[in-house]
């Protein structure tokens, strides 16, 4: 295919997507309640202070304690903007601290609720149904504490079982949405659960994956069975590189087992910011033609850029290793497009799911799929609830299948997730920040 033709198609699709963005939210950072985030995005010290505060909120025992933490963090900001100075003054008196604590707790709760749709799958059902009604499918992610004990692994597995019971039953009542329920390879489950291998075992060690894999497999197999029986999709999330190989190997091994040939529908994640992600895709493709060939449902591959960039860079620097991630965002973006094409080329053998909030990345996949003769529904698009909602609406408006990643859990459990999302949202080279600044559509669609 000619690059020029692809770029033309991409621009056209991109403009249509942009035009389909809901008017009120074209600038996702402009809402009044997001002043804090806007301020933070401009000031690295303030950003650090606010994030450290958000992170510690669940561990604070009183409004006074909250306020003391907040002023403690803000006190380290060198030239505090006016709102921060006000907060610091409030922190000087007991009554002020009480008011400040209450206000800040409310602020954090508000922010958390934007990303976290409910305390439990049951509580999340109205939101999930609403999304479905609006033409947006979902996948539920159960937030939780880190798993360091067997009991915690068991608890997480039990919560997953619970979700696998609740979600399909509720989803059966939803009205028909053909675009969300089927592609060229067949039917797609309405209920969709994302799980983390690191939460299924306390034994996952980067240096010695085998023991953790064995232990996690003991809890993952029953989940696969439940998903198959309930007719749900089970998606295995990816975390940092420390567990990447272990997770990949485990997923491909289990899904290749005879028992799971007939189901469930399942998926894994490919992280485009990893330099060696093309080789990972090689391995997945080889599997799809080998051990995974006879499966009733092709493996869904969710292509993401990756959410642990800072962690990977720091980890590598502290050990003297070369960074496993691209240092330049443009390189990640280019690799994302490269991998998108390979995944779309493999449609039929794999189910590509393009997960991005970047207008260009999404438009690129849509255009490439169209120019290579794919059915529009052969590619799925995914976004994060709370960040990508406008683009989800735009994708849905084009008649394409889009799925929102919806975290479920309590505030305590949600904080590390929330901080990661906030980091993304305020990162200087993030697409959303560009969009918020009012960067024009041509520039948003420019090649990386």
């Amino acid at each position, binding site marked *: 295919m000619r690059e020029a033709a692809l770029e033309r198609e991409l621009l056209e699709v991109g403009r249509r997507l942009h035009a389909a963005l809901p008017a009120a939210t074209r600038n996702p950072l402009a809402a009044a309640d997001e002043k804090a985030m806007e301020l933070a995005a401009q000031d690295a010290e303030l950003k650090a202070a606010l994030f*450290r505060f958000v*992170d*510690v909120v669940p*561990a*604070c*025992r009183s409004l006074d*304690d909250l306020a*003391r*933490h907040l002023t*403690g*963090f803000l*006190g*380290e900001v060198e030239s505090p903007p006016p709102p921060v100075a006000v907060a610091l003054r409030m922190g000087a008196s007991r009554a002020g601290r009480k008011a400040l604590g209450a206000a800040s707790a409310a602020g954090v709760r508000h922010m958390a609720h934007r990303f976290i749709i409910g305390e439990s799958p049951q509580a999340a059902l109205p939101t999930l149904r609403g999304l479905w009604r609006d033409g947006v499918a979902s996948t539920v992610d159960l937030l939780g*504490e*880190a798993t*360091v*004990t*067997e*009991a*915690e692994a068991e608890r997480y597995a039990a919560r997953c079982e619970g979700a696998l019971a609740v979600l399909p039953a509720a989803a059966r009542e939803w009205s028909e949405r053909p675009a969300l329920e089927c592609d060229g390879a067949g039917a797609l489950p309405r209920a969709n659960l994302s799980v983390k291998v690191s939460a299924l075992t*306390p*034994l996952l*060690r*980067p*240096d*010695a994956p*085998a*023991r953790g894999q064995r232990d996690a497999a003991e809890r993952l197999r029953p989940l696969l069975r439940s998903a198959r029986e309930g007719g749900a999709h089970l998606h295995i999330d990816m975390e940092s*590189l*420390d567990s990447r*190989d272990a997770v990949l190997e485990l997923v491909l091994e289990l899904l290749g087992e005879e028992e799971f040939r007939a189901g469930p529908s399942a998926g894994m994640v490919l992280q485009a910011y990893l330099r060696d992600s093309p080789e990972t895709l090689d391995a997945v493709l080889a599997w799809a033609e080998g051990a995974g060939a006879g499966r009733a449902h092709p493996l869904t591959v969710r292509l993401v850029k990756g959410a642990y960039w800072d962690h990977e860079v720091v980890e590598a620097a502290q*050990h*003297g*290793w070369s960074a496993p991630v691209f240092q330049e965002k443009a390189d990640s973006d280019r690799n994302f497009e490269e991998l998108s094409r390979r995944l779309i080329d493999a449609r039929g053998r794999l189910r590509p799911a393009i997960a991005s909030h970047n207008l260009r990345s999404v438009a690129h996949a849509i255009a490439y799929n169209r120019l290579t003769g794919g059915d529009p529904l052969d590619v799925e698009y995914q976004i994060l609830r709370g960040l990508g909602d406008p683009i989800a609406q735009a994708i849905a408006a084009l008649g394409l299948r889009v799925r929102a990643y919806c975290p479920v859990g309590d505030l305590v459990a949600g904080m*590390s997730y929330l901080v990661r999302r906030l980091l993304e949202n305020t990162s200087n080279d993030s697409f959303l920040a560009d969009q918020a600044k009012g960067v024009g559509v041509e520039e948003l669609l420019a090649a990386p």
Partner: protein
Amino acid sequence: MSLPPFANEPVLELRRAPVRAGLADALREHDARGPLEVPVWVGADKRSGDALVSTDPGTPDRVVATSAAATEADVDAALAGATGAARAWGNRPAGERADVLRRAAAALRERRLELAALEVRECAKPWPEADADVCEAIDFLEYYARGALELAEGAELLQVPGERNTMAWRPRGVCAVISPWNFPVAIPCGMAAAALGTGNTVVLKPAEQAPGCAFALVRALREAGVPPDALALLPGEGEVGAKLVRDPRVHTIAFTGSSAVGLEIVRAAAETPDGQPHLKRVIAEMGGKNCVIVDADADLDEVVPALVKSAFLYAGQKCSAASRVLCHAAIHDGLVERLAGAVSVLEVGQAEFLDVDVPPVIEREAAERVARYTEQAEGTGRIAARARDVPAEGWFATPAVATELPAGSPVLEEEIFGPLLAVERVRDVEEACDRVDASPFGLTGGLFARNPDTVDRVVERTPVGNLYVNRAVTGAMVARQPFGGNRRSGTGTKAGGPAYLLQFVEPQVVCENTMRHGLVV
């Protein structure tokens, strides 16, 4: 002469399977070579023997090295040689000595897996830690090579017309290095490299449990160009060290080991017998009873893995290892529950296997000691968790968490040097600081707290030499976390830090009158 800036030697990236794959081969090759023969090595004379037998702590019938033991005559010969060689080595240009250290670093770098395999067998040091130990040895050589060069430039002094003021640091003379088995290459290497780099000669008495590792180190240094008489190897038991410490020919004693031996050395070195025209200087790194303070706002998701790492990696046999947790009452029970769960799934087994979390301890006596303390903890408090399957053969200690111990319990006050971690409930961080203060030790400490004001307060109050905030308390890196204890934990010198080399030299100031008959030259 200027060298490229110092950077830590990167440890193996063991999270990658191809890197892991090389380890088993290295161990096979090690085993195929058979037991090492470690000589008493004085000047050009190598005398082998089998007075000492070093065995694999996990498989005690596997002999790793047989070693000669130094006699009184060996000590005498080594000190005579080192004394004789001191002037020539000390007069070599600093750049030449730095080159020697860096050549030794290159040699260790080339043999990293081979040396790590030796540590796996001789000291039951698990691969990641054994590799890190060899890397640290390389770091010491590279770091002190640079430091010695810098020191050789002397200090800037104020100059006024008519006088020339210079300050230089001269080698002290013979340095006795007495090293432990737990960092069997890095610690002897660090102490010896500091002494040699600054122009001193060295007589090394390594731990009797790890003569093989010390021999490998001395060989690398000798092959790199340290003159035979400037570096002697005297394997042996405690009395060899005791003789060295008392000998009037020794100027500096660099020691890392137990508090009891360290105090003994400090006392002995204070003597100035006839015929000793100098004061001895002691650089001692001794024991600890390292406390980790956990405030109510700590994130247990991070605290638990960090505590497990700090207290149980290498079976707690690091002087930096965590031994007491002082936890805020508000989260004490939650912490104990999660910690107990994490400890009960620790895999105890042979050091060579990467999926083993806790290897054996160094010798029978150590396993018995840990068992004694655990029994005591059980009798007076509660054992909240124990690792489940502990091999019967080999010197294994059972990792455990003790709680509800009475104040003053030996489990809370004495250094156990094994995989036993005690958790105490405190009212607040102030009370935790009081308890840390009450201990005569001051090596490492930890703090998990997220309020910056709390961190500032603890930093101000704590007597420890190395405080780690919101992370594990082990794993100090050369040039990043210069390491060493205060109080009775050490002489306050910081290995791998900017001032360490000053312990091995004597300052000399020269003021020359440059004016005569009104003429300034």
